[in-house]
């Protein structure tokens, strides 16, 4: 079974440009999460989709970040315009929709560098 995949693995852009990150969750997983790790800090939650609906977007830093999950399959995270402090590793995770707890499986991450 394929795991969570993310594209691209690495992106280098200049301040003010736009970047779109993509995540393909594990097949059958209704839950999809975005997290971010800024250098020197812990991994932090950005938002959570259940199918195509945003369940929790409390971690989104500001309105320069836009996440979508059309059709409840893959998700994109767009940063527009990018700022220097947006540099970091963006992780996507997915999980099944189960009662009680659910295990979140992470992708390899997209390393974003904003110059």
């Amino acid at each position, binding site marked *: 079974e394929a795991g*969570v995949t993310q594209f691209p693995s690495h992106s280098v852009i200049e301040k003010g440009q736009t970047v779109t990150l993509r995540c393909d969750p594990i097949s059958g997983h209704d839950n999809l999460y975005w*997290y971010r790790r800024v250098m020197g800090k812990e991994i*932090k939650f950005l938002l*959570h989709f259940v199918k195509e609906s945003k369940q*929790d977007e*409390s*971690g989104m830093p500001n309105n320069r970040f836009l996440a979508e999950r059309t059709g409840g399959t893959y998700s994109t995270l767009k940063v527009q315009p990018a700022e220097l402090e947006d540099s970091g590793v963006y*992780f996507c995770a997915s999980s099944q929709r189960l009662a009680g707890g659910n295990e979140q*499986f992470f992708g390899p*991450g997209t390393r974003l560098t904003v110059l």
Partner: protein
Amino acid sequence: QKEVEQDPGPLSVPEGAIVSLNCTYSNSAFQYFMWYRQYSRKGPELLMYTYSSGNKEDGRFTAQVDKSSKYISLFIRDSQPSDSATYLCAARTQGGSEKLVFGKGTKLTVNP
């Protein structure tokens, strides 16, 4: 105060040693506790997943949660060079938000 605190190390041990990794947390609403292992330039890989207090064992790995002291531990027996990685503890509440709250991670090196 951060919700999950973890000593970033680094921690270096000889092969075969017992490794103890620890985290503390402040949110008493946390009910689920996880340990992830992350190799360099890879995503976090789920190692252990426990609910509430108690112990859970899986091969050479044992996870312990003590909710009275808000303390989470991961023990690795007979450590191997392949265990060299960053270990991340994480926690989340039951119901409500499903977001994971992570510690900073502890970088472990097991020397042959």
